[in-house]
C-alpha cells in the first residue's frame, strides 16, 4: 500500500492513515470464504525445505475489538495472500468473538490450515498454523502470546495500554515466533532476551 504522505500536512496524515490502513470489518464481503487458488510457496522461500514450510506458524495477528489490525506477522505466506487472511480472520472474530471470555480459545480450520483465536481484554489474537502447528500446538502458542501480552501490559490490555506497550510487545513477539517457528515460551527467558540478556543468566 504505497502512500505518499511525505508532502502531506500532519493533519492530513492523521486523517488519511486510518481510512486506508485499518481494515474495518464492514468493508469485507459477507460471503463465506471460498477457496480461490493454491498457495504456492514462493518469494524468497524457495530455499526452505518443504518440511520446514509445512510446519510453520503461518500468521500471528492481533486486532482491536473493531477489527482493525494492530499487529500482524506472516510467515511463509505470499504477500498477495495476506489480505485474504486478514479479512478471513477478522471476519471470523467479528462473527464469533462477541461475548467470549478472556482467553477462551476458539478454533477454525480452512482446508488443512488451523486457526486458533481468542480475545484478551480489548484485543483479539489470531494464530494460523499448519501440520505441526495444529490446533493444539496453536493453543500452546497462543497461551504464550497472551501471557506475554499480559506480562507486558500488566493485565488484559485495553487498546490504549496495548498501544502504549506496542514496542515491547513487538519485541516479545519477536522472541516468541522466529521465522515461523515457536521459539521462547518461557516467561523469564523471554524477558531476559528482550533486554538483550542471554537466555540463561549466570
Amino acid at each position, binding site marked *: 500500500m*504505497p502512500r505518499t504522505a511525505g508532502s502531506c500536512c500532519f*493533519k492530513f496524515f492523521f486523517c488519511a492513515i486510518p481510512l486506508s490502513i485499518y481494515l474495518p470489518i464492514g468493508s469485507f464481503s459477507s460471503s463465506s*470464504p471460498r477457496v480461490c487458488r493454491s498457495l504456492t510457496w514462493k518469494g524468497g522461500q524457495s530455499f526452505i525445505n518443504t518440511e520446514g514450510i509445512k510446519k510453520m506458524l503461518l500468521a500471528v495477528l492481533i486486532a482491536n475489538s473493531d477489527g482493525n489490525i494492530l499487529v500482524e506477522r506472516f510467515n511463509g505466506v505470499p504477500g498477495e495472500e*495476506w489480505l485474504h487472511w486478514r479479512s478471513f480472520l477478522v471476519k471470523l472474530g467479528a462473527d464469533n468473538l462477541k461475548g467470549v471470555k478472556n482467553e477462551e480459545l476458539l478454533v477454525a480450520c480452512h482446508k488443512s490450515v488451523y486457526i486458533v483465536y481468542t480475545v484478551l481484554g480489548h484485543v483479539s489474537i489470531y494464530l494460523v498454523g499448519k501440520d505441526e502447528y495444529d*490446533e493444539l500446538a496453536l493453543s500452546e502458542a497462543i497461551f504464550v502470546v497472551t501471557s506475554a501480552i499480559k506480562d507486558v501490559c500488566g493485565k488484559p490490555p485495553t487498546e490504549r495500554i496495548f498501544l502504549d506497550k506496542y*514496542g515491547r510487545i513487538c*519485541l516479545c513477539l519477536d522472541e516468541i515466533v522466529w521465522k515461523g517457528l515457536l521459539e521462547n515460551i518461557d516467561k523469564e527467558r523471554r524477558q531476559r532476551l528482550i533486554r*538483550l540478556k542471554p*537466555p540463561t*543468566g549466570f
Partner: protein
Amino acid sequence: MADSSGTTLMDLISSDPTSAPPPSSTSTQSSTASHQRPASPFSKPVTATTTTDRKSKRSTLMQIQSDAVSAARAAVRIPHKHKKKPVSYTQLARSIHELAASSDQKKSQRQLVHHVFPKLAVYNSVDPSLAPSLLMLGQQCEDRTILRYVYYYLARILPDTGAQGLTPGGGIPTPNWDALADIDAVGGVTRADVVPRILDRLSTEATNSDPEFHARRLQALKALTYASDSPEILQKLYEIVFGILDKVADTPDKRKKGIFGAKGGDKESIIRSNLQYGAISALRRLPLDPGNPIFLHRAVQGVSFSDPVAVRHSLEIVSVLATKDPYAVAMALGKLAQPGGALQDVLHLHDVLARVALARLCHAISRAKSLDERPDIKAQFTSLLYQLLLDPSDRVCFEAILCVLGKSDAADRTEERALGWYRLTREVLKAPEAPSVKDKDKSSKARRPQLLIKLVMRRLESSFRSFSRPVLHAAARVVQEMGKSRAAAFSLGVHEIDEGGDVNTFSENNEQEDGKSQHEGNKDTVASLLASLMEVVRTTVACECVYVRAMVIKALIWMQSPQETFAELESMIASELSDPAWSAALLNDILLTLHARFKATPDMAVTLLEIARVFATKVPGKIDADVLQLLWKTCLVGAGPDGKHTALEAVTIVLDLPPPQPGSMSGLTSIDRVFATDPKSALALQRLVQAAVWFLGENANYAASEYAWESATPPGTALMMLDADKMVAAASSRNPTLANALTRLQRCAFIGSWEVRIIAAQALTTMAIRSGEPYRIQIYEFLHALAQGGVQSQFSDMHISNGEDQGASGTGLGSLLSPMLKVLDDMYSAQDDLIKDMRNHDNAQKEWTDDELKKLYETHERLLDLVSLFCYVPRSKYLPLGPTSAKLIDIYRNRHNITASSGMRDPAVATGISELIYEATKPAPVEPDNLDDDLVNAWATGLADDGLWNNAPAMNRVNEFLAGAGTDAPDVDDENITSRPSMSYEDMWAKTLLETAEADDDDGRSSGSSSPDSVGSVETSISSHFGGMNYPSLFSSKPSTYGSSQPVEKSGTSRHRKPSGGSNSYEGYGSPITEEPPPYSSPVHQRYESFENPLAGQGSSSFDSHEEERSSSGNVQSGTALYDFTAGGDDELNLTAGEEVEIEYEVDGWFYVKKKRAGRDGKLAGLVPVLYVSQS
C-alpha cells in the same frame, strides 16, 4: 476504533514523539559527531576485508550517514506551527537520525526507548535509510534495550520481500519511503547500499567470541537468519553456526541443571549452553542437509544439550532427517535412545513441541524398512512412541496416536495405514523397566501392560469431554484419522481384522510372558470400544462451534462402515445442514470427504450418495455442483453392477423433490424436503436439478447397461407390435432402471422449469439414440406427442404448474423437438428403406452391388454424423440403420479399407488412397468389444492417479483434498476464480454433452464448469434461438462441443492410441488419446472437443489445431446450401438455399465455408451447420 479516552494506534504515532532537542543544535551536534568520530558504526574493522575495502566501505557509509543527517537537518528546519504535533513517519526517521548522533546522552536514550522505537514498530517495514543510524547506535550505544531494538529493526530490513520492500510487520504500512523523499533526494539510500553493511556487521558480531558479548552474538546470529535467502549469506551462516558448535557442542552439559528454571552451573557452562541454543536455533532456520554427516552429528548432539529450546530444535531437525535416512539417524542416536538416554529424558521435558518432535522421530525410525535387521533399535523407538501415548499433553498424545495409526506428512500409504490400525488394535504398551524404582509393589500396577486401543479410546473419550474447542477439534480429527486407517485395513483385508473378538485376549497373549493376567471378566471388543467412543463423538455434534461439528461429521463419515446403517448419520447431517452457520467452504470440505471416503471404500458408493443427496437438497446454494456431480459419477461407477440402479436412484431423487416451499419450516429436519427458501438457494437448486436431469440422460444407459449397439436380448418383433401401454409395461419389466429413468425424464419434460424441460428433452433424445428398442420407439412416441403438446393432459394430474407460460405447443419445446424428431424419423425411415432393399435383394436373389453398398454406407455415415450431433455414440459400433445393416456395412468397409472409427472422412478414403493399401499394412485398431465394467471400475477407483483428473477444477479440488493440500488463503475476492482453468469435469466413462467451460465470472453461480448452466454463461447467442434461455442447446449458434464426435474423425490417426487400461492419460492437445475408448468412456474425445470450442478458454489453441489440420489435409470441398440459414453470431455466415460454397473444414458439426461472392452482409466466410450444406 477511536477510543476517545484512550490512545489509539493513530494517537500513538500522532502524539509528539519526542521533545526532540532543538533542531539546529542537535543537527549541528550530530553532524559534528558523524564527521568527527571515525568510531561511528563503521569504524570497527571487518576482519575478513582488506584495508582498502574497509576504507571504501567506511567512507560510503559515512557518506550515507552524513547525507541522511544533513537531510534530516534540512528537514527539521521547517518551523513547526503546533505545539502538539502528530507524528509522521518522516519525523520518526529524523528523530532516529538525530538521536543516534547523541545516543550517549541519557535523554536521547530515553527518547529512543520510550517514544521513537515503539512508534516506529507500528509501521510494517523499516526503510533502508534508517540503517546507518541503527548501525551507529549498535556501535556506540550501551543501552541494552536500545540495542535490542536495533537488532529487531536490522532483522526487519534484511529479508528481501520484493519490490514493495514490505516485511510482515505492524498495522500501518510504511509510507513506502515517499515520506522520506527529501532525504532520499539527497542520500539516495537503498537496500543495496545498506544490506551488505548490515550483514558485515552482524556477521562480525556473530563470530565475536568475547564471553561478555555473547548475548549480542546470539541476537546478531538471529538477525542474520532473516537474510538466509541469499546463497552467500547462507554459506556464511552455516560457517558461523558450525563454528560455534565446533567450540561448544562437544562438551554437552547434563540437562539436569537449569531445565526447570533452576539455575546452576558455572559461568562458562552457561555461556556454552546459551551459545549451543543460539547455534541450534539458527540451524533450525536453515535448510537441512540430509546427506551431510556433520550436520546430523551436530543435530544429534543437540538432543543432549542443556537448553530445552535447543533440544526441541535438535529433535525437530533429527526427526525430519529421520524421514529421509532413518538408518543413519538411528545409528547416530545410538545410546541416546536406550533407557536412561537423552531421549528418555525428553519424555519429561517441559517443552510440548519437543515431545511432539520425539514422537515423529520415533515413528520415522520404528517404521523404517532399512532398520528391519535391527529389531532391537526399532523396539526401543516403538516403546518410546507408545510411552508418549500416556503424555499429559493432548498435543503429544494425539501426535503419538497419529504416528501409531501410520499417518505421515507425505502421501499416505494404504499399507502403512492398514498396519497402523492393526497395531492400534493389537499391540500393548509395556512400561519400561525402571531400575531406579525401589517400591515394586507400587510400581507393579503402573507397569501393567495396556492395550493401545483401550488406552487411546479412554484418552479420546476424556478429550471429548473437554470444554476446550481446540481439544474437541483435534480429538475429532484423530478419530477421523483412525477411520482412515480402519478403512485402509478393511480395504486391504488385513489379517484378523475381526472387530468382534475380545481384545483382552491379545493382551493376555502378551502378558503371558510376564506371567500376569489382566482379564477382568468383561469382554471388550474393538467394536464395543469403538461404539462407546462413537457415542461420545456423536454427542460432540452439540458443540456450538461449527468447525468442531464439521470435523465430527467428517470423523463419523470416516468411521462409518459399509455394513452399518447410516440412517443416524444421515439425519444428523440433515439437521446440521439446516443450520445457516455452515459456510460453503466447510460444506464443500465435507463433500470432498465423501469423495475421499468413497476412494477408500468403493463399496460405500450408495451410502455416500444417499448422504450427498442431503447436501443437494438442503444446501444447494452452498455446495460446489461440480464436486457433487463428480461424486455422483464416481459413485455410480463404483457402485458396481448390482448397485448401479440404486446409485442412479439416489441421484435422481433430486428430481422427485417438490419445488421449494418458501416460508415453510416444516421440512427443516426432513431429508426429502427441499430447503431453499431464499432465491439464491432456489436458483441453485434449479441448477442442480438441471444437472441431475442431464446426468440422468447421460448415464442412464450406462446404469441400465442398455445400448443400442449391444443389446443383449434384442426385442422380438412382437414386442414392437404391442400398443404403447403394454410396450411400456414390457420395457419396464425388461429393464427397470432404464424405464425408471425414462419415466423421470418424461415427467421432467413437463413439470420442470423451462430450462429443466429443455434438458429433459435433450436427455430423452440422448437415451433414444443410445437405447435399443422398445425404448427408442417409446421415447419417439413421447417426444412426438410432446412436440404436439397433446400429451400434457395425460400428465395433468402430476403437473405442478410453476406459473410459466409454456408456449403455444403447451410445452414450448416444439422448435427444439423437431430436429430431434427429425433425426429419429430419418433413422426409422432409413431402416425401413434398408429392410425393403434387403427384401428386394433376397427376393431377387441378387448380390448387393458396390454402388448400392456405397449408397447404403453413405446413408449410414450421414446418419452417424447426424446422431453424433446430439450425443456421443461409438462410431465404430453404432448402427443407425439397425443391427441388420452391420453385415453390409462391414462388407463395404472391408472392401474399401475404411476404418470404422474414421469412416469416409479419413483422407485416405476420401482420396482413394486407402484402396491402394494392403489391408495388412494398416493395423486394425483393437477395440474393446464390450463395455468392460471392471475396467471402468478400476478407472473410477484409481481416478486420482489418472492424468485426466488434473484437467477439471472439480477433480483438482478432489485431488487436492485427497492429497491433504490446502494452505490456500481463504478467499474473499471472487474475481480470483477467473484464473481457474476452463475445463469441464469430464471423466472416463461417459460422454459429456456440455463440456465447454469458461472462466466462471458469475459470482452468484455455482463455480461448476461442468454443470449445464456453466456453458450457458458463455453461449450468449443461444438466447437468440431459444427465447433467452441460458442454456446450451443442440443447435446453439456456435460450434459447441455438444454431443459431437467429429474430432475423432478430424484428429487423425496421430491422436489415436489404443486404450491401455487405466493408464491412458491426457497431457495436452497433442497427447496420445484413445482411439476407441470403451463405450461411454470417451472423455478423451470430449476433452479434446472441449478444447476445440473456439469460445472456450483455450480457443486459440483449438484453432491452431484446426489450422494444422486444414493445412495437412489441404482438400477444399465444394458444396451447395440446402436451406436458408441465418447467422446467429459473428462467426457465422448467412446462406441462401442453392448457394455454392467451398467447405474449408469441419468443426463439431459445423462447416467453415467460403462463399464465392460476399453476401448482403458483406461476409465471405464463416460457420454454417453441416446439415445445411450438401457436399458435392
